[in-house]
């Protein structure tokens, strides 16, 4: 749990209150204005109702330049951010031709496969020539090429499961699989901070949904005992099946899942486990096999392993790995397999090639180097940030590290100041996080060099002083040490 300093909470509430009051005030005048000018809806209800877009109009638009910044190069360690300007106080942003070369601390390019790679890129281009960018068909019709089967075998052996099935998008993987497996009379127990795709899949399934406190195994056990004892609501029939859904690394928290404890509980109560490794597969573990490898969990104990290829592998799509029977069944029942266009062949090739590099099957040790590099980079960066007095969330070894900002005014300030000094960071605020817990999020990559990281730390430290987000006292002795290093 994050303990917010009392004063910070107060000022944060005050800022939001002020924004809200002013927004309402302006809305009030807008309403009067609209009422005077004639209503042009002609009997249709407005397509966005008042409060639904209040947040967008009055809060988001003010700081929208901090989000969705276009880039004009591969999302590598350094990239070109397209400069934008606005003539109507940030309501619309116009692209310019000017680019600024920035250090990329925002992309999920954990292993550095986003940029051209000596092993992957030639193979991807070859595949493009052979198979074209698309099959224009679903997997069960004309969308299964040799490459797709190879990819599934490759993924299955990489994540150490008997079989796997792949889809062209990670989001769809979650949201189309859950309805196939769970339905009325089943129970989904979901971590409270699970990704939106899981939430959507769970809602789409029609199963009952219960939530347990983020990453607290004891609360999971409590919920499980209560639910098994109670049975279904009203009828009290026993649940048909129960599935616990967790993520490997939580992308907004940077935390590793308490997997060993959760798996032990799930085994004890005979419930199924679903592990979403979107951010952890390829990024952590000795050979990049994700949290199971890192935390010493046998993959046989996880019933369904899900992951995406958009992060570490620098491609697109998602997979489900599990028993042969499970995958066989999914191949006949899952709508995303039956109806959606199969994953683009060059993207599939990128995944196969990057897995080969990770496993050292390309004949070099670049994969092992990348894995060592990302771990070293992440731990170095995290510890330096902590020493400077930032409030950094997450666990060691995780390449995702949120820095708490809290105050709404600090979101654009931090983001813009960093960008001015050529460091691109991601800031996240409500509704992606709770109202009080706005943060900046750093994603470390194996392609960052030590100099890159030191430059980033210098900038973040300066901006941190400016914006006032060093909520803890800096560590004095070591601070000297690092400042020497920076000189």
């Amino acid at each position: 749990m994050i303990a917010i300093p009392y004063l910070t909470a107060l000022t944060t509430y005050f800022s939001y209150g002020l924004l809200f009051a002013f927004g309402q005030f302006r809305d009030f005048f807008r309403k009067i204005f609209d009422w005077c000018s004639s209503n042009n809806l002609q009997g249709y209800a407005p397509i966005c109702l008042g409060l639904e877009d209040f947040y967008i109009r009055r809060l988001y638009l003010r700081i929208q330049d901090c989000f969705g910044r276009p880039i004009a190069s591969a999302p590598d360690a350094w990239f070109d951010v397209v400069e934008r300007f606005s003539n109507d106080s940030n309501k619309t942003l116009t692209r310019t031709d000017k680019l600024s070369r920035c250090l990329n601390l925002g992309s999920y390019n954990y292993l550095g496969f986003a940029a051209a790679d000596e092993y992957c890129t030639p193979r991807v281009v070859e595949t493009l020539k052979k198979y074209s960018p698309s099959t224009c068909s679903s997997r069960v019709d004309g969308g299964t090429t040799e490459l797709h089967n190879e990819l599934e075998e490759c993924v299955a052996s990489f994540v150490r499961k008997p079989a796997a099935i792949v889809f062209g998008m990670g989001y769809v993987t979650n949201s189309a699989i859950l309805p196939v497996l769970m339905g009325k009379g089943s129970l989904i127990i979901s971590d409270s901070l699970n990704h939106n795709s899981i939430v959507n899949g769970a809602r789409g399934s029609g199963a009952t949904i219960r939530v347990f406190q983020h990453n607290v195994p004891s609360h999971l056990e409590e919920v499980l005992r209560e639910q098994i004892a109670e049975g279904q609501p009203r009828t009290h029939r026993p649940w048909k099946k129960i599935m616990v859904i967790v993520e490997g690394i939580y992308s907004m928290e940077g935390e590793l899942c308490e997997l060993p404890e959760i798996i032990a509980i799930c085994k004890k109560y005979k419930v199924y486990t679903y592990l979403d490794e979107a951010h952890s597969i390829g990024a952590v573990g000795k050979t990049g096999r994700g949290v199971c490898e890192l935390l010493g969990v046998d993959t046989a104990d996880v019933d369904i392993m899900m992951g995406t290829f958009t992060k570490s592998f620098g491609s697109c799509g998602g997979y489900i790995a599990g028993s042969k029977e499970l995958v066989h069944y999914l191949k006949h029942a899952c709508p995303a397999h039956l109806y959606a266009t199969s994953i683009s062949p060059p993207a599939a090739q990128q995944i196969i090639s990057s897995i080969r590099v990770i496993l050292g099957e390309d004949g070099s040790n670049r994969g092992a180097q990348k894995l060592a590099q990302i771990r070293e980079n992440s731990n170095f960066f995290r510890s330096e940030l902590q020493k400077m007095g930032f409030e950094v969330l997450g666990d060691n070894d995780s390449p995702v590290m949120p820095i708490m900002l809290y105050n709404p005014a600090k979101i654009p300030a931090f983001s813009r100041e960093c960008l001015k000094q050529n460091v691109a960071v991601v800031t996240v605020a409500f509704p992606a996080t709770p109202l009080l817990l706005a943060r900046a999020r750093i994603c470390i990559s194996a392609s960052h060099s030590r100099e890159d990281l030191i430059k980033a730390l210098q900038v973040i430290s300066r901006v941190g002083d400016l914006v006032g987000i060093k909520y803890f006292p800096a560590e004095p002795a070591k601070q000297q040490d690092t400042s020497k290093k920076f000189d």
Partner: protein
Amino acid sequence: MSASERFLANSMETVMGSAVVNFVNTTLNWVMFALDAPSARAVVFGVHIGGHLFIEVFLLVVILFLLSQKSYKPPKRPLTNKEIDELCDEWVPEPLIPSLNKELHYEPPVLESAAGPHTVIKGKEVINFASANYLGFIGHPKLLDSCSSSLAKYGVGSCGPRGFYGTIDVHLDCEARIAKFLGTPDSILYSYGLSTMFSAIPAFSKKGDIIVADEGVHWGIQNGLHLSRSTVVYFKHNDMDSLRETLENITVKYKRTKNLRRYIVVEAVYQNSGQIVPLDEIVKLKEKYRFRVLLDESNSLGVLGSSGRGLTEHCGVPVEKIDIVTAAMGHALATEGGFCTGSARVIDHQRLSSSGYVFSASLPPYLASAAIAAIDILEENPTLITKLKNNISLLRKELSKISGITIASNPESPIVYLRLEKSTGSVKDDLRLLENIAERVLKEESVFVVVSKRSTLDKCRLPVGIRLFVSAGHSESDVLKASESLKRVTASVLGG
């Protein structure tokens, strides 16, 4: 009962009766006394406090007392830990998946080359009628060129959602290109065709809103309808009378409800039947009843209309009349992903509220480049559309000669949909017959056709059939060969 007993009972009654009367009298006396007491005549702030006030206060106190008491409930005894342990031990979950039966044996053919009009399966070249490559863009050199230069510049994946440095300049260019092509103010790219509809619908329609949808819509739309939690009413497949009736009923029923958003959801060319929706009718109804229209142009973009701008062009409906247009790009444009296009307000709203857009990595940039290239090629070569139209009508003409099957799709539809003339009465048997035909056509005649498949989750109940995806890349002899092959095999399967 004896007489003496009766007397006794009577006297008891009188005794008891008089006791009650006595009690009431004394109470009344007491109350009268209380009321007559000096305090009862008190004057507070110039108001005489009459005796009845005391009774009222008394009653009030009694009522409050009664209200404050909890109603009777059987005492709740929570389960002891031991009991919960037992329940947990006893609980037996169902298996994660149902046991696999023999029917689930289908293995799709594996392609050994690109899925163009001709492809290779098991080392043999076959004519491909299974890919929705309507304009024959698979393998088009210009498309490949744009992809390879994009790959060289941007790499494969975008490594982030649109909000967090996943917006690449080609995405913006592609959105502008699509909007320009279709004549709309703006458009928004999704990273997968399937997610386009099921993210766009819940972005606009919330709990309490009303959606009228065709019963034949594909699963992506069905899922969107479900996720929106709106009230969903289905009308008969492509039946405008049924739609009118539904709209009328809803208008009457919700006459008084204010600020109710109402939508009609239809597909331009139905993936599940090859029917084309009469858009001019829809627009008339929509304007009469004040509904908004969501139109899925996945199978009509690049196919219908004289320049391939889709059903709006085909029906001569100005595109502004359709509030929200979506399309998957994995068909005619021969790339992947999807887009939604419409007014600036419609698009901007999705950029923050559409979950599949906000919470997913953006489309790989090379696929966006491919989409731009595909639209460019289409604009430069309008003859491709004529070629496709000719192929469709030739195929239909030839197929109509086959006995035992009927063509269920619209004459202009690029999906030619064949159904059994006489159903066996069971969906399973029909499916087996059709699959048999498709399998033999592939094996014996080297023509790749597929039977429509249904997921167990799919609510669509339209009959299954063989689907042929016609392409401008097919030559006349390809089309003739396909129809000849189907004719031979159908005769052998249905005849024998």
